[in-house]
């Protein structure tokens, strides 16, 4: 279980998170929606210790992330797959090596690494792209390699940072299907950060809206669809103020 507990974070004096509190239950996919710059990605990066909170904390299965020492943080990160907004693939490595990198860190035998790379690429429909470099891939393909890199580790948690941003509607739908498939195959708990409502409705069990640094509303997909909160309504309907 991932728990955001009264998380506060500011950058250069600008308060981004002001008491963000939210629980992600085991086995569910929770979608965090919100305006651009509202702090969704900032919240997500606290889960893997890429950012340190000014106050509050994130706990993963009871472990307070900001208090972990290096080995404990590395152990925690081994349980979490992170898919970055622009995939963050290593330019100098080909597709297979990108997927292989995290597996090598775990010290797995070479044949198991090869098998997991093959499986992960097959799951994201990228079989046969092993030798291609990130610069030779489309945006959608790069994001799928990012997912393959994360799922090859067989994590307990998957964190997706804006997985459909910058993609055309069809490729976005492919990504949504992939996230659902990943959850079905691996049974992982997921947190998806997005402002794409179609994607949120497709992949989420619950949706939370982050507004002015804290959770404005959290509920099932149906509850969010039926919300009467004017701020949430305006966002999900995409109405300008």
């Amino acid at each position, binding site marked *: 279980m991932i728990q955001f507990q009264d998380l506060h974070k500011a950058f250069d004096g600008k308060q981004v998170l002001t008491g963000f509190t939210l629980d992600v239950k085991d086995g569910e996919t929770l979608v965090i929606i919100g305006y651009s710059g509202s702090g969704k990605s900032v919240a997500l*990066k606290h889960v*893997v*210790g*890429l950012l340190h909170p000014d106050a509050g904390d994130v706990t993963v299965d009871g472990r307070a992330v900001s208090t972990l020492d*290096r080995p404990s943080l*590395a*152990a925690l*990160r*081994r349980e*979490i*797959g*992170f898919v*970055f*907004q*622009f995939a*963050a*693939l*290593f*330019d100098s490595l080909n597709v297979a090596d990108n997927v292989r*990198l*995290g597996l090598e*860190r*775990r010290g797995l035998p070479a044949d198991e690494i090869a098998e997991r790379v093959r499986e992960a690429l097959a799951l994201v429909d990228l079989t046969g792209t092993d030798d291609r470099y990130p610069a030779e891939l489309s945006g959608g393909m790069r994001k799928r390699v990012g997912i393959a*890199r994360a799922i090859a*580790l067989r994590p307990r948690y998957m964190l997706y940072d804006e997985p459909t941003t910058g993609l055309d509607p069809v490729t976005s739908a492919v990504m949504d299907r992939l996230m659902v498939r990943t959850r079905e195959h691996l049974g992982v708990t997921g947190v998806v950060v997005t402002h794409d409502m179609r994607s949120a409705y497709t992949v989420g069990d619950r949706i939370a809206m982050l507004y002015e640094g804290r959770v404005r509303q959290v509920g099932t997909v149906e509850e969010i669809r039926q919300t009467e909160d004017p701020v949430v309504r305006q966002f999900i309907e995409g109405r300008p103020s």
Partner: protein
Amino acid sequence: MIAHVGRSAVAGIKAVGRFGQFVSDMVRALSDVATWGRLTPVQMRRVGVDSLPVALFIAAFTGVVLALQASYTFTGTVPLYFVGTLVGKTMMLELGPVLAGLALAGRVGASMAAELGTMRVTEQVDALETLAYDPQSYLVVPRVLAGTAMFPVIVALAILTGILTGWLASLLLLDLSTQEFIKGLKLFYRFKDTWFGLFKSATFGFTITLVGCIVGLGTRGGAEGVGRSTMQAVVYSAVLLLMLDAFWAMVLLR
């Protein structure tokens, strides 16, 4: 005015603190041999082989110019075989290490800052961390070790090239015989001439690569930030290199 001075002082103290933290993290990462051990040879090849043509090119012309300038200075007053002395001493003690160092500050330091800066702004460094790698052991240690190990090799070859072209220039343009050139070369030679230049170049390699890594990993703000980091890496490296040069002269040559 006072507020400005205060802000600058605080920023300076913070920068020193960040530098200290960075170096301490790098030293700690040395224990992760499994990671940096396999990546260091790759960086050694990049730093060494890729940088060699630039260093040799500069050294070759420096050797010729030194021989001609020495001859121009000595004519009629000092025996011409001192050309060999001046070419050898100057290449070994100063121009070999410093000119190659300055050239490589641009070649190696800038490329490291640009590469790591791009990795930082495209979240590749964050991705490394989420894969449970320590960026220090994966990115920094191999580069700094490679720089420290390869700079003396590059500089040694640059010194040899400079002396060789100095000899050729003496032979072909100054009517100096090989025996005379070698006589001059050996005249005031001390073993310290060799190790001083190579030791100094190792510290240059360490500094240039460390600065490239610190500036690169501290990059903020997209393409503009990468450009700024690249420029800063060259400027800081060059300034530190010249300061180190004076420092080692004061410490080791007095």
